């Protein structure tokens, strides 16, 4: 993959607002953001209800994903452009999720909702209607999704990239600081994981830094480009942002997102945990 294939600018989106084969999809952590205004023609996916099984902690299955996209009017040959707030955290998560189920033409709006707003571009409350489709998903592509056992086995072997803020990595905070800190799991990080906060990859306006800048950031943080990589955060959305950078922008071969992330790992019995700013030993 490359930047040209996976990222579009706000101007590109503005130029394609009336293109029927381009489907804009807003996905936000704040699931009410869409209702208060969105880019013209955009549909909404709610990451808490549309993309999660409502009983088990897992994603909706292939049939549910097919039913969801069919009902929302997304076709297999549509160009899906994802965007959202929080510097595209949840849009990147949805991008990775669409990849998991094999959607073909997928883009992320560089800078997401914030860049669109800071450019003073128009938002509307009008909800579009799209014809229903008959969407067919692929089986989950497990080459981009890591589970806990594989993550534990990666300690000291693969690149583990903890993309949370330095204070979360060190165990001084348990959640991103816009959320209450009272949490059940232990604080800290997976031993040997490098801390490369997702935000290092983005400019203040939410757009991605250049490929050269990105490569330098991960190299200096100790990412070994000859090794496979697993990225994680707290619940797998910020690490989707980093997965996008490593896999889609920089074209690294084997990059997985561990969506169980710290809310799972920090609750496991018997696994090693490192505290403080240092990586810790395998």
């Amino acid at each position, binding site marked *: 993959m490359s930047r040209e294939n996976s990222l579009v600018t706000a101007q590109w989106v503005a130029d394609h607002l009336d293109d029927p084969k381009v489907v804009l999809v807003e996905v936000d952590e704040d699931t009410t*953001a869409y209702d208060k205004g969105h880019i013209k023609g955009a549909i909404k996916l709610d990451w808490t209800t549309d993309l999660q099984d409502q009983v088990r902690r897992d994603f909706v299955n292939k049939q549910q994903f097919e039913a969801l996209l069919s009902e929302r009017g997304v076709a297999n040959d549509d160009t899906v452009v994802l965007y959202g*707030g929080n510097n595209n955290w949840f849009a990147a998560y949805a991008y990775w999720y669409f990849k998991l189920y094999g959607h073909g033409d997928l883009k992320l709006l560089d800078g997401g909702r*914030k860049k669109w707003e800071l450019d003073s571009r128009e938002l509307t409350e009008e909800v579009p209607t799209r014809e229903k489709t008959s969407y067919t998903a692929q089986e989950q592509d497990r080459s981009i999704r890591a589970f806990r056992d594989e993550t534990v086995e990666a300690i000291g072997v693969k690149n583990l990239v903890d993309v949370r803020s330095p204070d979360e990595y060190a165990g001084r905070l348990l959640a991103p600081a*816009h959320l209450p800190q009272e949490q059940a799991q232990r604080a800290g990080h997976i031993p040997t994981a490098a801390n490369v906060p997702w935000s290092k990859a983005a400019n*203040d306006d939410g757009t991605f830094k250049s490929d050269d800048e990105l490569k330098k950031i991960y190299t200096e943080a100790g990412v070994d480009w000859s090794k496979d990589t697993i990225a994680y955060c707290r619940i797998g959305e910020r690490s989707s942002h980093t997965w996008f950078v490593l896999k889609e922008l920089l074209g690294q071969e084997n990059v997985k997102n561990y969506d169980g992330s710290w809310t799972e790992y920090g609750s496991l019995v018997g696994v090693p945990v490192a505290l403080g700013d240092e990586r810790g030993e395998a």
Partner: protein
Amino acid sequence: MCGATQGGLSLDGINVAKEAVVQGQVTRGGEPVGNAYVRLLDRTGEFTAEVPTSATGHFRFFAGEGEWTLRTLAPKADPVDRKVHAAVGSVAEVAVAI
């Protein structure tokens, strides 16, 4: 927005004793700014969190003990940085004028 609550966001439902709350309001010419973004930077300047302001210009973070910087971004305005000290069990109120 006229009638916006003065004196900060309601703390209903928040266990203030266990949190180091940093919150406030963004204004431009005395009027609340509802489409701004406030970033929380740690003592080294590293990004820690970001929230969009509410319709009344309000924002809130649950920080840790120590020194933080709030950086406010808004359309047609230069970024504004404000230092703030957070402590568990207290609410630091910050007024940001852009």
